[in-house]
């Protein structure tokens, strides 16, 4: 099960050079084989009629509710959302946690992928397979298991207490910023490892050997040979990690506290605890803009990666 984006085959093939003498581009065959008639258009229209109520209509209603007040169009809900003292600075918190978690996870993920690819240790294939399964884990579950390990009564806390003969178990960071960042790093690093590994797999190892034989050290090989080729995959993986961390909810629900409010948590609290749907809708629209912009960027970068010969 690869997570690679849908290949834009038609676009890629249209760019093929006329030097392929005699080879008819596959897109031409496809187009002559497919009946270009109303049946195709009708099929797409029916599909649209299924997707619109599922996805587009709710989003439009969300937008409408966020802009509606007692007397028609009003931005009151947006003011209410951001003026609420509990949610003030919520965007700052969101971005701070995002930067820390996704930043660490990206660096760690690339490092682990490099390790798995260039210096495999016995059991590396097993670990790679495991990392692929790991992404089907629910995120809140990972956070929950950390309570047994890093919580104040958890295993590592007790180990440290016994090791250093302390009065109290020392670790008390889990239900706060540190804990959230740890949980997000653990959960999202595999999301960076997989696309990075995939892009390393496109490397022509002979290039590396050639560079080494010409006297380049490992750092130079990494910087000048590997990174330029593997960059699209790494960028895509990193962007994905940032996007998913931005949208993360389960981990914050388990490990967060009243001072640690990110946008998804604020939206949820506004909707279900305060039962204030318009305010929640306002926050949701802001979140929507942020997420979709990042997602559009991610799609553009992955498409570039696909185009450059994967």
């Amino acid at each position, binding site marked *: 099960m690869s997570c690679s984006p849908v290949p834009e085959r038609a676009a890629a093939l249209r760019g093929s050079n006329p030097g392929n003498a005699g080879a008819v581009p596959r897109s031409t065959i496809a187009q002559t084989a497919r009946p270009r008639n109303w049946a195709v*258009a009708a099929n797409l229209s029916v599909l649209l009629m299924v997707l619109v109520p599922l996805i*587009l209509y709710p989003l439009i209603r969300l937008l409408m509710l966020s802009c509606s007040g007692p007397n028609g169009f009003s931005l009151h809900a947006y003011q209410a959302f951001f003026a609420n003292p509990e949610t003030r600075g919520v965007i700052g918190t969101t971005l701070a946690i995002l930067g820390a978690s996704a930043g660490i996870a990206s660096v760690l993920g690339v490092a682990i992928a490099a390790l798995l690819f260039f210096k495999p240790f016995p059991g590396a294939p097993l670990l790679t397979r495991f*990392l692929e399964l790991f992404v089907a*884990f629910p995120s809140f*579950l990972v956070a929950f298991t950390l309570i047994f390990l890093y919580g104040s009564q958890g295993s590592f806390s007790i180990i440290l207490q016994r090791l250093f003969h302390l009065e109290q178990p020392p670790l008390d960071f889990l239900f706060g910023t540190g804990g959230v960042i740890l949980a997000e790093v653990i959960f999202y690093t595999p999301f960076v490892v997989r696309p990075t590994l995939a892009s390393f797999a496109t490397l022509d190892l002979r290039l590396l050997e050639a560079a080494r034989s010409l006297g380049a050290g490992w750092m130079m090989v990494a910087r000048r040979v590997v990174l330029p080729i593997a960059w699209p995959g790494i960028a895509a993986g990193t962007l994905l990690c940032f996007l998913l961390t931005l949208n993360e909810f389960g981990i914050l629900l388990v490990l967060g506290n009243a001072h640690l409010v990110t946008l998804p948590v604020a939206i949820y609290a506004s909707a279900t605890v305060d039962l204030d*749907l318009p305010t929640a809708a306002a926050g949701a629209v802001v979140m929507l803009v942020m997420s979709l912009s990042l997602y559009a960027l991610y799609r553009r970068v992955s498409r570039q990666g696909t185009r450059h010969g994967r």
Partner: protein
Amino acid sequence: MAAAALCVFLFVLPVVVVALSSVAQHWSGTVLPTGLSLRWFERLGGDDWDALTTSLEVGFAVALGGTALGLWLALSLEGRDRRGLGAAIDTLAMMPNGLPSVVLGLAVLIAYHKKPLDLSGSAAIVMMVQLALVLPFCYRCCAAALRPELQILREAAASLGASPARVLLRVVLPQLVPALRASVALGFALSLGELGATLTVYPPGFATVPIVVVGEVERGYYLPASALSLLLLGLSLLALCLIAARVPRRAKP
């Protein structure tokens, strides 16, 4: 080797912890659980089993619905142009991938909790929002399986006189079976673990396992939550193995 240890430490350990904690008699204030016991499984109450059945029902519905819709999308949007109706539909289908689950849940709640379109009293609203969230994955799974080599087989069949319907049934679908199985397994696993949107839309009485587990964790009942989580994970793994087993190991791009 140190790096390998780090990997195991970070990633494998949480999984081991779920398994271990669910059979622990007591695990607080000690490095390892004190004593083993199955009592947490015995103590699973009516609410827990209800949540499990709800999760399973929703999971199957979403996995099958998502795969069907994803297959339909993949076949319809195959040779689409860069701009046009096909590209727009592709963007729409993939959009939930970039959204936080809570936002989509809220949107669905707003759209479908008042007459005339009131779905908020049944599990249908949960299935609907999870379907939207799972669809991008199923669609991508099926679309990735429609490889150019398949196109050659289809043209060969068409040139031998088979009707498009026959080409679809006899040539395309059998080739897609591994991808369809993977899509069902993935949809099922994602649905079982879904929290954000489900928590926002679920009607009373239709809690799923993640909701119950998080509720128990918030109240401090860690070990019963572990038992329930282990059941959930076991079911996911079972489905993954049963449905997606024998997926041919093609060279991945």
